[in-house]
């Protein structure tokens, strides 16, 4: 199998015009949109923070300074570790994890219902209803949540009127609004992969399990969930990655005390003007997320190949 053989097979199969188009499109996508930006970020993260005239000059050498900064803090600081940034980092990951679990708990029953109910029209309307809110801009949605969860928002008003509480609850400070907003933002990304696999699950298997006396929870535990595992893990991966990397929702809905790690990255890029440090932080976030996802997949015995199914 030589390269020329593979190439000529490829062109025979797709024709010359389409073949060239596919090749160019895929190469453009992978190289220009994925590989190059990440490589330049990686490169950035190992450089000194220099004023523009000195870039490319003799002082522009590779350094681990920014990575050290994230772990150890500024040289000569009071603490031996960069407690502030590391705490934010850990809390961000934990919160993203929490959002993922929340979405999974919410979406699995819904996806199961959608996937297994045979009614065509009803199901399609339900799915459509799920999509409509996503026509609205992300920032608008976040502000809408802020209003709903605000001191004089609908939720507080209703609870006050019903006499459940005597003072408004500060949902923003307690981060309830943030979790709700994030969870809501990625619900579809959780539902669709799970819905997709469950839709292909043979109904008879569920009935067979029931016929053999299994209660509903065991049917899910032994039959549906193992089958839906690829969908669940691709949903979880997307929600986790995107929550950890979210910026707008934490910015708008986060309480004053809860900084998201992406906000710190944003500050370094933007107000801080220190792109290499921002790049280093971003790389650390990306790599950590990938490692977490891969190790969870290993733990739950999901192979990467299964996810595309």
């Amino acid at each position: 199998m030589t390269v020329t053989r593979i190439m000529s097979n490829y062109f025979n199969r797709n024709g010359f015009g389409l073949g060239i188009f596919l090749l160019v499109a895929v190469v453009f996508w992978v190289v220009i949109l994925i590989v190059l930006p990440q490589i330049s970020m990686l490169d950035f993260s190992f450089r000194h923070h220099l004023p523009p005239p000195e870039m490319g000059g003799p002082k522009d050498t590779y350094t681990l300074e920014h990575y050290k900064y994230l772990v150890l803090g500024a040289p000569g600081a009071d603490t031996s570790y960069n407690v502030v940034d590391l705490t934010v980092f850990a809390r961000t990951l934990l919160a993203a994890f929490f959002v993922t679990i929340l979405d999974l708990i919410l979406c699995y029953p819904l996806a199961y219902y959608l996937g297994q109910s045979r009614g065509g029209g009803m199901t399609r309307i339900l799915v459509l209803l799920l999509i409509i809110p996503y026509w609205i801009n992300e920032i608008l949605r976040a502000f809408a949540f802020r209003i709903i969860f605000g001191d004089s928002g609908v939720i507080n008003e209703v609870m006050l009127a019903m006499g459940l509480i005597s003072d408004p609850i500060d949902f923003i400070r307690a981060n309830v609004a943030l979790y709700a907003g994030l969870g809501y933002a990625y619900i579809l990304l959780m539902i669709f992969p799970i819905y997709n696999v469950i839709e292909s699950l043979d109904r008879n298997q569920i009935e067979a399990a029931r016929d053999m006396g299994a209660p509903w929870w065991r049917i899910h535990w032994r039959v549906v969930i193992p089958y839906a595992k690829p969908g669940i893990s691709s949903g979880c991966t997307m929600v986790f990655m995107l929550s950890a990397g979210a910026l707008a929702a934490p910015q708008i809905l986060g309480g004053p005390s809860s900084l998201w790690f992406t906000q710190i990255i944003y500050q370094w890029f933007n107000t801080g003007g220190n792109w290499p440090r921002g790049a280093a932080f971003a790389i650390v976030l990306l790599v950590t997320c990938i490692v977490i996802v891969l190790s969870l997949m290993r733990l739950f015995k999901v192979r990467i190949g299964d996810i595309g199914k």
Partner: protein
Amino acid sequence: MSKGVDVNLENVWIKFGDFVAVRDANVDIKGGEFFSFLGPSGCGKTTILRAVSGFLEPSDGTVRIGGKDMAGIGPNKRPTALIFQNLALFPLMKVWENITFSLEVKGVSKADRRKRADELLDMIALPDQGDKLPSELSGGQKQRVAIARALCAEPDVLLLDEPLSALDLKLRQHMRTELREIQQRVGITFIYITHDQGEALTMSDNVAVMRAGVVDQIANGHSIYNDPATPFVASFVGENNVFRGKIKSIEGEMALINTNRSGELLARIATAARGKLKVGDPAMMFIRPEACNIAADTAPAPNRLTAMVKHEEFEGQIYNVFLEGAEGKEIKMSLVNIGQHRQSAEGDNLTLEYVPDQAVVLPVGELASE
């Protein structure tokens, strides 16, 4: 294993919206019996089975298992086990886990389950295959695993929904024998669904023939074949030559039919039609291809008719001879291959003869569509 129990359907109706899938079914199945529902696709066989297993509540009427009314009792609480049309093995569980799933539900320890699985695997002649996944088995092996899985639950009634339909002919014939043996060994009630009359006749103690939601006849295979209750049964089970006409005279069990195209023919009145036919009534008469023979004596008689050979098919153990009678009436005759080369030639004018007792008369009714 527990002894099989009776299953009774009393005036069972099953409707999907306005559509009536099962109409007033009355079926009594005795404990330990191998009972088949036979009927064409879409006649409501699966629907009946689902009502017995509990996945479906009848719109009206009663399902009894072991004499007990099953209304409101879910499938997981009924003493039945269902083998699905597509088997529905759990693809991600190993074979042994599949087989013992019902024990897992009951909380039996893993060691005991494994032991039971090995016993059942021995029984279905698949020893040492327990650690495979279902996808690693052949069609016939999957079949047997599905049977073992159902038997492992020790049901009083085993329900089988066309479990052999996906297998090739040889394997299907082999599995017939095997199923029958298993049934006799465990002694529980088997309710078997099929649209293959061969399966129904070879395996069953009793057969119910269904037509579009209606149970036409319940009897043993012999009676179904030789003494059909309706024209549908006569034409659906096995092959039959149909002659339409009017009853000319009745003498005891025998009737003389004035057929539209083939003259006067003598036949036995089917048991189900006794007392229901009068002289002058329109009627249908059925003669099986294998009941026909070439007559040595060509003199006209009420059990003889003349026809011309159109063509002949050689099937191995039999020849099928296709003939054309008076006014283009098509007639089929099957002759046993007794080693001769051919017994007829195209264009031959033959006189056919049959034993009148083997031909039956029924009131006019719906025939099975080809």
